[in-house]
């Protein structure tokens, strides 16, 4: 084994059990490892410590409104796609104390929270989710204002990316040009082969994570197998979304009858916005002790599907499910582009899988196209 960690942009092969040493290196460097694990018959993201915590041998079968896990005989570590969780639960948590307020000398003193900041190592990040993190970076860090809470959580994140080994019928990252291959935004990226991980080193931190592990330069054979595996994946996509006429298609069809049709199915349950890795809307709640001398402001995840989301004195601007579904889809695929320069959708398919009635965002957009009202 070569004495030094590999250089950045090297392509290496790592025997699969040695991934445990990478985990140990990361933990020794002060990272908290979070990654996929099986819980409640779902692959969720949670703290992990060892290779056995990963969903070894599990694959997921996803369809509109359907998610099942199946155990296979092959001990693949990463043979599934994405579950209902995304990395925003760590970077943009659903519940966050913003500050506290205390009455003092007749006035108020406002204090930011003093919470130790974990340094996360994200294990098993898919290309679609790398793109989603980049999109949230633009929303929360790239504009006139910066979200300091997101910035603090984001700055030291270690990304161990995984190139998907297969595709679910709900996936359409290729259409959104976010996958299936991770090409940037990672410290390490791996493609799983039967006995080794073929890994690309994306940064110095990635290189350091391989220190003292039995890595070797990837042979042409290994690299060829990894390439072929990725090309196989690229051929598996069933679902597509044509994007070249967005955002105009949606702006031109804000009164299309399809919105009425989808409103007969949509429950306005907000699942899609909870599962979506780019949805960022929040609300705030103010709490207080009974004497109103101490208060706290808590930020909570929110959804444009919530009825009170658009509440103003006099009522809700969007009282109908039709208007709220239209808001979500037109924001995700149209106005997001005007706001932030990219689409808000990465093609991960979560909104399709986790919609209880199986509404498919790709089908809804195609329907606007099919008989575009003028």
């Amino acid at each position, binding site marked *: 084994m070569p004495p030094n960690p590999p250089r950045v942009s090297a392509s290496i092969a790592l025997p699969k059990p040695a991934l445990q040493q990478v985990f140990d290196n990361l933990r020794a460097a002060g990272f908290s490892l979070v990654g996929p694990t099986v819980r409640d018959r779902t692959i969720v993201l949670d703290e992990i410590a060892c290779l056995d915590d990963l969903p070894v041998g599990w694959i997921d079968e996803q369809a509109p409104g359907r998610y099942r896990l199946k155990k296979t005989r092959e001990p693949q570590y990463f043979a599934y796609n994405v579950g209902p969780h995304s990395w925003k639960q760590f970077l943009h948590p659903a519940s966050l104390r913003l500050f506290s307020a205390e009455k003092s000398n007749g006035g108020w003193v406002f204090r930011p929270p003093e919470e130790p900041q974990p340094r996360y190592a994200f294990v098993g990040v898919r290309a679609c989710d790398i793109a989603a993190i980049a999109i949230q970076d633009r929303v929360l860090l790239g504009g*006139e204002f910066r979200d300091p809470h997101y910035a603090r959580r984001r700055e030291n994140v270690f990304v161990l990316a995984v190139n998907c080994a297969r595709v679910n019928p709900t996936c359409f990252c290729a259409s959104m040009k976010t996958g299936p291959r991770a090409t940037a935004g990672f410290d390490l990226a791996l493609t799983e082969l039967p006995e080794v991980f073929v890994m690309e080193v994306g940064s110095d931190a990635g290189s350091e994570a391989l220190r003292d592990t039995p890595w070797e330069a990837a042979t042409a054979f290994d690299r060829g197998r990894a390439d072929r595996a990725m090309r196989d994946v690229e051929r598996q996509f069933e679902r597509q979304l044509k994007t070249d006429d967005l955002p105009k298609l949606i702006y031109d069809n804000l009164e299309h009858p399809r919105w009425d049709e989808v409103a007969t199915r949509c429950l306005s349950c907000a699942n899609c916005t909870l599962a979506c890795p780019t949805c960022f809307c929040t609300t705030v709640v*103010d709490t207080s002790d009974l004497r109103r001398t101490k208060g706290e402001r808590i930020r909570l995840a929110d959804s444009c599907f919530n009825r009170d989301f*658009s509440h103003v004195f006099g009522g809700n601007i969007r009282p109908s499910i039709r208007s709220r579904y239209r808001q979500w889809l037109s924001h995700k695929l149209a106005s997001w582009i005007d706001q932030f320069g990219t689409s808000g959708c990465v093609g991960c398919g979560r909104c399709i899988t986790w919609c209880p009635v199986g509404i498919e965002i790709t089908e809804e957009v195609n329907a606007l196209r099919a008989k575009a009202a003028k």
Partner: protein
Amino acid sequence: MLPRPAVIQAIRPEAAGIATYTLAFVDPADRDAYHFLPGQFNMLYLPGVGEVAISLSSDPGEPRVLGHTVRYAGDVTRAISRLKVGDVLGVRGPYGSHWPLEEAAGKNLIIVAGGIGLPPLRPVILSILSQRDAFGRVLLLYGARTPADLLYTREFGRWREAGIEVNVSVDTADENWRGKVAVVPQLFYFVRMEHKNTLVLTCGPEIMMRFVIYEALARRIPKNAIYISMERNMKCAVGFCGHCQYGPNFICKQGPVFNFAAIEPFFGKEDF
């Protein structure tokens, strides 16, 4: 984005359920650093109760004291109604876009306000008063539901003396009212103004603004010479919570003041 403590220096009742709160930051450094443009708003915070977006209604030329005309409408404003002079609340701001006073230089202005829509325009009027010669004719078209709901009536004399043509109406008169009875957009029929070189600035209920725009366009005022102030649910005021979105715009960032031409495709769209 932490609020800064500010003390209530004065509370002036304006109408039933409406009062103007004059605030000053407790910390002199905050007082020195703060300045705002007409049309912008602050987030006023009562710990344990919540925050509310309130437009600044005072003179931008005197930013050490900040006037906010508040209508008691919900939980936070009702809690504000129970505060007294000397109480402290949290203030952060200013946020949002502003009325185009720079563009208005040398032009005529028609300022059209309905009800609680006048406070966000008052800083425009006060700015005009301090440099009256910089503008052409200035008309104020203002109305409220009843005479008791009219705001700032004590100031109309001063405004008229300074050369602002103040036209007032009410929707419903009482027995003492001797003025016009009309909805605000109808005030256009009582005045004459050339359409060239004229800007319209309007704030009020959306339905009122819709008809104001109609009347302005009917008098050949170009779409891009009309400015409106929009309102939506606001939580963060910095474009992160997502609540105030209006098409591609965040009312807290690209608004609340909009050039009508910029938002015409969405304006008046139901449930949007």
